[in-house]
């Protein structure tokens, strides 16, 4: 198990280096002078030169890259151009809100997807199964930047049950979490149905039924547990979609997370903050994939002995 763990962690390091390199090169993709682009056309040459020096853009590229990597490892991602606040602390302030939203969205997705997927598999071919499939496809096709405003129209404006924006109580969390979790729920429901159907055909399930186990017991105690393995992998892989979706959902509902910070910093051309947000989200995603791989190895012994 330790060897499996070490190997997975070792494979992640070059990926993290590649991610950091790509994020570093973003600022150099800006057409023209990056410092001029950040300050705007009306900025004086002296201000542009000062910013170029402050960001290290007047140094050789390799030196800039080395400094960027060294500082990133230390947790120093520079300072916001607009507020002069360290990028790291600006992001850390917003992180709890994004984690709260992502966790709530995952809970919504699992709470909806697992029962729906099980029901669709157990009653395969019935109108319930067809309805579940259609609902799943709708969930995948309806963008969260449409679902969010629609939910706001119905539950906030028409019915007045829930607030439309901000963060504070659990009520503020409901609409953003449902909006963000819907697509994930649809994907998970489809996967749960497909994997459970495969398990239900396995001889051990038929044997359990032959030994007198009820249908419910055969499904829940035997088939469902084994069908969870690919579902766990999918949850890990879809976490990235949740993170990206959070960028849009936080914008719609004015949720004070990293996603909203990213969009605001793009609008202000605050590129150190843009770089910091992109790097943090990407590193979080890589870490989540690593955790998923390790969980997979833990749950399925065949994986760690390969």
């Amino acid at each position: 198990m330790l060897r499996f763990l070490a190997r997975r962690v070792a494979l992640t390091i070059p990926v993290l280096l590649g991610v950091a390199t790509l994020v570093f090169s973003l600022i150099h993709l800006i057409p023209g002078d990056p410092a001029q682009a950040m300050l705007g056309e009306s900025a004086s040459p002296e201000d542009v030169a000062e910013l170029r020096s402050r960001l290290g853009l007047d140094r050789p590229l390799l030196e800039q890259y080395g400094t960027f990597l060294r500082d990133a490892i230390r947790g120093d991602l520079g300072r916001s151009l607009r507020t002069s606040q360290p990028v790291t602390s600006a992001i850390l302030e917003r992180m709890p809100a994004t984690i709260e939203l992502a966790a709530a969205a995952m809970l919504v997705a699992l709470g909806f997807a697992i029962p729906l997927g099980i029901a669709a598999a157990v009653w395969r071919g019935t109108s319930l199964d067809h309805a579940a499939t259609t609902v799943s496809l709708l969930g995948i096709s309806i963008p969260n930047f449409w679902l969010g405003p629609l939910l706001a129209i119905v539950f906030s404006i028409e019915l007045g049950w829930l607030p439309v924006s901000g963060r504070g109580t659990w009520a503020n969390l409901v609409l953003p979490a449902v909006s963000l979790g819907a697509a994930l729920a649809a994907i998970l429901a489809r996967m749960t149905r497909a994997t459970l159907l495969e398990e239900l055909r396995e001889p051990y399930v038929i044997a359990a039924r032959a030994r007198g186990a009820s249908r419910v017991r055969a499904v829940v105690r035997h088939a469902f547990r084994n069908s969870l393995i690919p579902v766990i992998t999918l949850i890990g892989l879809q976490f990235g979609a949740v993170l990206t979706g959070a960028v849009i959902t936080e914008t719609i509902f004015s949720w004070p997370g990293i996603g909203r910070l990213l969009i605001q910093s793009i609008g202000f051309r605050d590129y150190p903050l843009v770089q910091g947000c992109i790097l943090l989200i990407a590193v979080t995603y890589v870490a989540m994939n690593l955790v998923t791989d390790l969980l997979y190895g833990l749950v399925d012994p065949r994986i760690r002995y390969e």
Partner: protein
Amino acid sequence: MMSRIGAAIVFITVLAALIGPSLAPFDPSAQLLAQRLDGPSEMHWFGLDELGRDIFARVLAGARISLLVGVVVVSISSTVGTLLGSIAGYFGGRIDEAISRVIDILLAFPGLLLAIALVAVLGPSLANVVLALSLIGWVGYARLVRGQVLRAREFEFVQAARALGATTPRILAQHIIPTALPAVTVQATLGMGGAILAEAALSFLGLGVQPPTPSWGTMLNGGRTHLLDAPHLTIFPGLAIAALVLGFNFLGDGLRDALDPVTRQKRFLSDGTKI
């Protein structure tokens, strides 16, 4: 059945995009400020937006943008991805390692994040959206084709072609890549829906198509500030996006079932009768 519904939705949208704007009774840019934010009526089926522009005409015009982005992004992504994936899979070794590492790094960025970052630095425009989506889109095709080619290069007919003196480009083009085409076709169909959603998302965030060009995402963004007094600004563009993406998803699912030999086999009884 579902795939036929999907095909019908896609066909109607393509038709609407091609001839709709010329048949629409109103210019998508014409402003009737006195009637701004008016709801659906007999004259304006989808109502008017915040500048008094006919939403139905703008939805039709937006269909062109969405389909154009989808076609261009999928064409570039699938071509580049198929090429790089087949080179990686066929040659193996260091070439495969290098391409696979690039794929791993690009896949380390979740969903649209890298596209958001690229458009943020390059500047918001339709061209940059297409560029950004193509730069991240090829990765999925490359991984898919690489897997297919790894399998196909061991087939006997490929070895026979090699023994007969066929050049590597000929083997790739005439023997190996065609085996991956069914999977690429399914991926491309589903990818159309993905590209359309991605463009709409970027435009919604203000990073894609810029006003006054009608894009469904930009229209949805404009509707956000009028949820209370004019919800129709949000409903109709969103419905268009959902319907078209659903259509491509149905079509892609149907193609996958039709081209997957296991599913095809299940549709026949043991005596060969088709179910």
